[in-house]
């Protein structure tokens, strides 16, 4: 090997040294990079942002350190000295390469040295001269990096300091409520499917009460459940029509409730903000009919203008529209008329009496109240829940507005006509005024009972073993015998 060979060997050694040093410094930089990345991941996750974005220092630190090492110029003399030290060559290579590079005057001894160094350099392996070694903190860096990556892989909610928004919780509860209602209305579903969906819904409702459970996750699962329910509706179009009709009636029920609340609030205070809010909700509720929304909007506008009389007329019109949509009164209480609904809404502070009626409501085998009284605790359908809750609310309010002593006052009779039959008794009626006996005159106001009566009728139709294709016929039959018609 000549002198150029010695120099070439020195360059090879320098390249190897640079590689080893680059890996070494990169491994050394992993630890601070991991520490910074860990901090960033925790910070980002804590603030609710994607934690994986904090992993950047994990790669940037080692890469930057290695790049800086690679950019350092090669120094063959230095590397030759280092190789001497690592291989125990007693500065032979370093001195010889230094003599070569610096172009010093070469005496005889220097020439012999160069030859000797060239001979020895031929046997030098760069890997042996510069074995790869790792810094002591490399293991710590690896552990920290693993921990950081694991943390970054966790869901954002696990790292976030923010608890689920109250809005999310409210929305989830609202969706659960809607789902329960829709599930109650979708009676055309098969029993197994219905029970399955109901079980899932109950589990999610229970989960919502647990503060440790992520409300967003529950909301997503509720959405999925809703889609499942919708899928079931889509699969059975002939059943879907009935379900949708029931859902529409539920909306009407809601509109009627708002209407009553608005009328009551308006009667107490002509400037009631509550009445305005309810009318605004009615006007913006897409589930209500066009006429109801229009009447609510008119009423709201009249209230804004301070025209109380026009507002009451609008409310009455909305009540008529609502009654018209619902189409019937409660079974057992007899049908009412649109005028009765108008009167009830227009005079919420006055006593109303049921009109004469003789309708029968006997197409249910067993009412939900009776099942409750029988001690059954299994979850009931939507009708039971809504009836019991709303009736209790209304009864209390009704007793406040219409104490029993007023029954004897000579006021217009707005009660539903008819007499109590042998059919199911509405829970609201029983709770408000005591359970009526068969043959007694109807005592419940029409506006209180007609929606429940309709739903009770629907529930009765759904409970019966009536083929789906024949249910409309049965429903039409009973509607056809409505005394109002």
């Amino acid at each position, binding site marked *: 090997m000549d002198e150029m060979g010695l120099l070439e060997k020195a360059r090879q050694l320098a390249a190897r040294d640079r590689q080893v040093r680059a890996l070494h410094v990169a491994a050394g930089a992993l630890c601070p990079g991991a520490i910074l990345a860990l901090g960033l991941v925790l910070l980002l996750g804590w603030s609710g942002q994607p934690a994986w974005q904090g992993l950047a220092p994990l790669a940037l630190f080692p890469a930057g350190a290695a790049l800086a090492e690679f950019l350092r110029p090669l120094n063959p003399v*230095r590397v030759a000295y280092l190789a001497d030290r690592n291989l125990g060559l007693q500065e032979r290579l370093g*001195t010889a390469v230094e003599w070569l590079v610096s172009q010093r005057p070469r005496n005889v001894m*220097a020439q*012999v040295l160069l030859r000797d160094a060239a001979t020895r350099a031929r046997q030098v392996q760069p890997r042996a001269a510069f074995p790869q070694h790792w810094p002591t903190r490399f293991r710590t860096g690896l552990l920290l990096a693993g921990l950081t990556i694991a943390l970054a892989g966790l869901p954002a909610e696990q790292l976030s300091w923010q608890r689920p928004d109250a809005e999310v919780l409210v929305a989830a509860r609202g969706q659960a409520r809607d789902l329960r209602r829709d599930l109650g209305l979708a009676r055309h579903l098969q029993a197994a499917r219905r029970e399955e969906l109901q079980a899932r819904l109950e589990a999610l409702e229970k989960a919502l009460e647990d503060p440790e459970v992520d409300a967003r996750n529950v909301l997503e699962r509720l959405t999925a459940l809703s889609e499942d329910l919708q899928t079931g509706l889509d699969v059975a179009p002939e059943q879907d029509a009935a379900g949708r009709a029931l859902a529409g009636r539920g909306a009407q029920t809601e509109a009627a409730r708002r209407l009553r609340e608005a009328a009551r609030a308006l009667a107490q205070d002509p400037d009631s903000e509550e009445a305005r809010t309810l009318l605004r909700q009615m006007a913006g509720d897409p589930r209500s009919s066009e006429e109801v929304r229009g009447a609510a909007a008119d009423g709201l506008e009249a209230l804004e203008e301070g025209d109380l009389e026009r507002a009451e007329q609008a409310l009455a019109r909305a009540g008529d529209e609502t009654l018209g949509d619902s189409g019937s009164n409660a079974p057992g209480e007899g049908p009412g008329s649109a005028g009765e609904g108008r009167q009830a809404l227009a005079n919420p502070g006055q006593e109303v009496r049921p009109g004469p009626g003789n309708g029968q409501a006997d197409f249910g085998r067993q009412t939900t109240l009776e099942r409750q009284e029988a001690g059954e605790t299994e979850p009931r359908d939507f009708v039971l829940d809504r009836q019991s809750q709303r009736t209790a609310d209304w009864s209390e309010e009704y007793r406040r507005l219409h104490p029993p002593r007023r029954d004897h006052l000579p006021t217009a009779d707005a009660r539903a006509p008819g007499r109590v039959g042998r059919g199911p008794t509405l829970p609201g009626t029983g709770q408000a005024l005591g359970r009526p006996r068969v043959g007694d005159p109807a005592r419940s106001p029409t506006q209180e009972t007609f929606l429940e009566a309709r739903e009770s009728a629907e529930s009765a139709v759904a409970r019966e073993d009536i083929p789906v294709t024949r249910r409309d016929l049965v429903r039409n039959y009973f509607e056809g015998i409505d005394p109002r018609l």
Partner: protein
Amino acid sequence: MSDTPLTDRVRIFEETFGRLRRELTRVVVGQSDLVEHVLLALVAGGHVLLEGLPGLGKTLLVRTLSQALDLSFSRIQFTPDLMPADISGTMLVEETSEGRRAFRFSPGPVFANLILADEINRATPKTQSALLEAMQEGRVTVAGEARDLPQPFLVMATQNPIEMEGTYPLPEAQVDRFLFKLRVGFPDPEDLVGILDQTTGNHLPRVEAVCDAPTLLEMGRLAREVVAGSAVLAYAARLVLATHPDRPEAPDAIRRYVRYGSSPRGGQALVRAARVRAMVSGRYNVAFEDIQAVARPCLRHRLIRSFEGEAEGLEPDQLVDDVLQAVPLEVPA
């Protein structure tokens, strides 16, 4: 000899050095390090100060060396009444054949290749200083006339470290002129048995002269050609600088216990001796380990301890070791 190929010169160097070592170790039992260092100084052309208790073979070593070398040898026993002229020589009045009187220079014992200055610290400073010019410049001036000393000129001085009464410690300037200060230690039990066996019988080993003056000078020239890289020279310089208490690279022990550090001559001594050692080791370049190997004999007599250092009884070798530990082996950046 300079015209012969380098390999032959190196071979002759190694052979001669090896023979000298063998001849010395035949007579001087044990003390292999001492013999090695004496020979290094011999080839490097440096003077040696041997320090040790009486009876440890200091004089024997130098006398044996003189026998192994085919060189002129003088032994000067230093005493308090020794005068400078007793060393350098004097002018004598002589009557010529014509009956006239003339001065004739009578050379002193210093006119020899190898000088044994035995118990040098017993002479007065005036007499001791008579050796200064001879040791540094290789010549003496008598009666205004400078006279060159024969080459090679080597002074091997001995001194007793414990007998302080009636002695005159060597001044720093003179101590600095010694390449090495070697400690002659007590022999090991095995070596002591060998000494007893060898020196109490009738058969004393005969020493053969294996090296003459030209050969020794050629060996010195060859050693001075040994290549010293910049990193090695820088290391030697850092070692010397680190012996100074006011330097930032000085270790704590130097700052505390040393008043003055080594002179640049100490650095020269390091590199000169290291070159010879590299040659003896079969290398053509000086290594860091060569510098480290000769650091103690080169620097120990060049560290002037402070009062605190002397009061603590701190050995100079300990300080040199601290310096060696404190100065890192650095390669060019």
